[in-house]
């Protein structure tokens, strides 16, 4: 192998950091420029040159990912959320209800309470089939109530076990997302047009399996809980990405990430030694959640800005 061929191979390996689309557009041209620079006295690819290509590649990948997100069909993604959120929550709540009925029948008022929660989650999307605005108002009221309750729970005078609020934070965000989806999209009617039977199945299985697995996690070590939770989220995300048709799937996954993250951290945090003190790590829940929500809001804003007349 000649020296030039070895240098070219090294440059080609470095260009692998760039996304395939970028390499198709500029790859051969960049190789020519890199080899010309190498023979023109700029030297072989040194550390600085390699760093420049790796940085450029990562930046191009980030930009490509961002463009894909911003190009998602956001009205449809929101419409999907108006159905996905209540289905997952209902699956979760009903599976847990059945689990608790199985181990302990409990007092009638407990059953009434759980029944009301089911009704509160199911009512807005069902109402939206006929009265979308009323449904959105009901959803906003319910989500607002839970959010106030959650904010009360995470007030500074509370005991400081931040992670124990993950379920409330996740549920509040999910209901707020569902309410926003009812208000600003075609709602369940549009979602029913998009979703395939398989995507309905993925949504139902996602919620039910979360409800079934949750009690199982309590007595497991935190690492095992983390593996189970992350694995399950990956399966749900993969299932939705594969079964939800069109570019709305990317938007749906990003929108669902904001409520899913605190719920997942909570499920892992309460496993093993119950009461794991996370008072020093409130950012564990709030920063990534804010990042997901901010990213979704920015992509939505860009989409609206770009498609505005």
């Amino acid at each position, binding site marked *: 192998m000649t020296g030039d061929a070895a240098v070219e191979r090294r440059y080609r390996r470095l260009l692998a950091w760039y996304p395939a689309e*970028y390499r198709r*557009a*500029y790859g*051969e*041209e*960049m*190789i*020519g*420029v*890199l*080899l*010309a*620079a190498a023979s*023109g006295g*700029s030297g072989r690819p040194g550390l*600085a*040159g390699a760093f*420049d*290509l*790796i*940085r*450029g*590649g990562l*930046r*191009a990948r980030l930009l490509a990912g961002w463009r894909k997100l911003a190009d998602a069909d956001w009205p449809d993604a929101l419409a999907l959320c108006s159905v996905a959120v209540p289905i997952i929550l209902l699956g979760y709540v009903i599976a847990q209800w059945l689990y608790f009925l199985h181990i302990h029948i409990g007092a009638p008022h407990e059953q009434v309470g759980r029944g009301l929660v089911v009704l509160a989650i199911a009512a807005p999307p069902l109402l939206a089939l006929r009265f979308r605005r009323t449904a959105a108002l009901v959803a906003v009221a319910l989500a607002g109530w839970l959010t106030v309750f959650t904010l009360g729970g995470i007030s500074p005078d509370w005991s400081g076990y931040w992670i124990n609020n993950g379920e409330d934070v996740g549920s509040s965000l999910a209901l707020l997302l569902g309410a926003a989806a009812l208000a600003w999209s075609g709602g369940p009617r549009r979602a029913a047009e998009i979703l395939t039977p398989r995507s309905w199945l993925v949504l139902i299985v996602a919620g039910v399996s979360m409800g079934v697995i949750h009690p199982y996690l309590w007595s497991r070590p935190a690492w095992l809980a983390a593996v189970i939770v992350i694995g399950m989220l990956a399966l749900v995300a993969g299932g939705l990405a594969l079964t939800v048709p069109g570019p709305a799937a990317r938007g749906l996954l990003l929108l669902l990430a904001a409520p899913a993250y605190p719920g997942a951290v909570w499920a892992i945090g309460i496993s093993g030694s119950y009461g794991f003190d996370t008072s020093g790590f409130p950012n564990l829940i709030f920063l990534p959640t804010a990042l997901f929500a901010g990213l979704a809001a920015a992509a939505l804003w860009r989409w609206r800005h770009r498609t505005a007349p």
Partner: protein
Amino acid sequence: MQEPTFLILTALAEGAQHGYGIMTDVARISQGRVRLRAGTLYAALDRLLGSGSVSVDREEIVGGRLRRYYRLTPSGAELLAAEAARLRANAKLASTRLRRLPGSALLAGGAA
């Protein structure tokens, strides 16, 4: 506007150039101070192509390798002109204030 972008547009204001030509021209017009690397150059070109400031002029195959020439578009020329005017205004203001500074004739380039 970042300096590498400004210098790339300045290089293209002379006429259409290929990637390596832009790199050497930027080194020359910055008197060796700015040495663009391929990753930085193509990130800037990709951005400038996306914004319509630069377009592809032609493609050639030289020594079996693709060589693509880029040229400044009218909107790129406007962008460069606006940036040059902004830099000129800033430089003028800095020079004026430096001249007023006691004992700073050398800093202001000796122009009084």
